[in-house]
């Protein structure tokens, strides 16, 4: 296998000078430049790497040496089922990714290695579990250097977005616009002076800003880099300092991660006033039967909330991607999936405004739909259509055609009629537009792409449908 170097479109990453990554249908191929081959092989054949692989902390690798051309080494990794990006994670997922990065770096330091870059983009979630995927990020460390050159990147891309989220309310989704994270100056300007000297903000924000004043105006090579590069210590002391730096960062990241918060929708499942126990049981039983009969291997739960039905699907052996725009609900679902060991990937997103593709030439990270289309055996659309229809003003025919693209076979829909109190809340007086909608309107829109297999009315007026996708 060789790399077609004349096809730059095939590359999905290209920033790391030691290699590039291409993604194919079933695997990811990482091509390593000849001059970095030996170091990569030493790392991959080390006991450190094999212990991480056994634990599942890093992606598995198959090594193919002796490739022709400038990329002499090829590493093949299995594809993670559904890649997610940091701007789609809840704060707890950010913390888990940061802690994994620091843990691996700490163990690497002990074994004579170090991380040369430290960004959340090195991590993917396999179900609820973070996995380190960018193996070329590990390099041999200078045993006498007590400086971690990637520390600033860790602070910019992991710590400061969490600090900004906690102290300034900046959404973590805004990291979509900043590949290399937040500069301390960005936060400093937005903080009141009293907050700038708060101990939790003094170290990651205020002191770096004060120290960098002056050096940023110079056009000469960064003096701080020169000074830091010149620092050398006895190896045991240098290692001790690095462990200390990593432990300090771990503490700072934990302080920055916000406590579990409530939101408008996070308590939805606990306060279902519009469902009687009979309604809830009927809905649960219907979906349990569908899962039992159809046995989907992959499920997309759109508007998953805290994941009652995602967990039901996962318990039936499905691999689930749970999507909801409510950060607090997704955070609860992620915690539950970790605690109960369910194969669920919760992501923050809105199906009506899906995550776009970003980066160089809009091709460095895939959009939500690029990743989701045709990937799932079954899609759940439970009590969501009225939100997409009324709040996002998407016509029923468009909702149906998107569902057709997302599912390979099954679609489970919970239809909420306009008489339902939740529908009424969303309408806010726009009865003339939506008040006359009937089950038949929904049925007509979905009938072009699906055939109804089951219909199950609930006592509260809502109706559950199992649709099967029509063949082309």
């Amino acid at each position: 296998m060789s790399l077609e170097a004349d096809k730059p479109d095939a590359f999905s990453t290209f920033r790391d000078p030691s290699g590039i990554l291409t993604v194919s249908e079933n695997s990811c191929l990482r091509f390593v430049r000849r001059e970095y081959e030996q170091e990569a092989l030493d790392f991959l054949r080390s006991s450190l790497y094999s212990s991480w692989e056994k634990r599942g902390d890093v992606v598995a690798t198959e090594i193919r040496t002796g490739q022709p051309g400038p990329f002499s080494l090829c590493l093949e990794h299995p594809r993670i089922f559904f890649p997610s990006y940091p701007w789609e994670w809840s704060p707890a997922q950010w913390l888990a990714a940061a802690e994994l990065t620091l843990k691996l770096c700490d163990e690497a330091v002990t074994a004579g290695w170090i991380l040369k870059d430290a960004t959340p983009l090195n991590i993917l979630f396999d179900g609820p579990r973070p996995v380190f995927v960018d193996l070329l990020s590990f390099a041999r460390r200078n045993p006498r250097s007590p400086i971690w050159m990637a520390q600033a990147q860790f602070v910019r891309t992991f710590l400061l977005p969490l600090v900004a989220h906690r102290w300034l309310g900046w959404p973590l989704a805004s990291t979509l616009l900043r590949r290399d994270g937040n500069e301390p100056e960005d936060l400093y300007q937005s903080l009141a002076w009293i907050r700038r000297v708060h101990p939790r903000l003094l170290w990651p924000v205020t002191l770096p800003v004060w120290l960098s004043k002056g050096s940023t105006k110079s056009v000469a090579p960064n003096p701080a880099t020169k000074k830091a590069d010149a620092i050398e210590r006895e190896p045991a002391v240098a290692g001790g300092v690095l462990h200390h730096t990593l432990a300090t960062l771990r503490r700072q990241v934990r302080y920055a991660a916000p406590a579990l918060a409530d939101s408008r929708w996070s308590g939805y499942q606990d306060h279902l006033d519009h469902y009687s126990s009979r309604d809830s049981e009927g809905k649960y039983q219907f979906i349990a039967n569908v899962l039992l009969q159809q046995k989907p291997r992959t499920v997309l739960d759109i508007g998953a909330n805290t994941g009652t039905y995602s967990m039901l699907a996962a318990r039936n052996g499905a691999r689930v991607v749970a999507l909801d725009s409510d950060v607090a609900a997704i955070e609860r679902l992620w915690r539950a999936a970790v605690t109960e060991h369910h194969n669920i990937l919760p992501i923050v997103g809105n199906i009506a405004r899906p995550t776009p593709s970003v980066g160089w030439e809009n091709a460095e990270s895939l959009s939500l739909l690029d990743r989701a289309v045709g990937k799932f055996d079954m899609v759940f659309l439970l009590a969501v259509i009225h939100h997409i229809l009324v709040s996002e003003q998407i016509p029923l025919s468009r909702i149906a055609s998107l569902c057709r693209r997302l599912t390979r076979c099954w679609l489970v829909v919970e239809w909420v009629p306009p008489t339902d109190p939740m529908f009424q809340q969303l309408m806010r007086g726009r009865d003339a537009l939506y008040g006359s909608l009937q089950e038949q309107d929904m049925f007509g829109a979905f009938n072009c792409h699906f055939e109804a297999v089951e219909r199950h009315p609930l006592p509260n007026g809502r109706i559950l449908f199992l649709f099967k996708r029509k063949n082309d």
Partner: protein
Amino acid sequence: MQPLVRVLIIEKQLFAVWMYVDPGSGLLLLQAIGSVVASASIIFRRKIYSLFRRSNRRTIIASDDVPASSESQSKE
């Protein structure tokens, strides 16, 4: 090619790998200052520890000496 030149080229390549990540300025300086403080504390702790270890060893040697000398005294 002279070995020194080769080493310089390799060092330059390795440096290129390291420096593709922006090391920051204030954050790096802060880390450098922190590393000096942490190094000093590690060296200080080691000195204290070795001091205790040395005095401990002296005590052990001394306690080993006592029976030996008393034994030799008794033999005399």
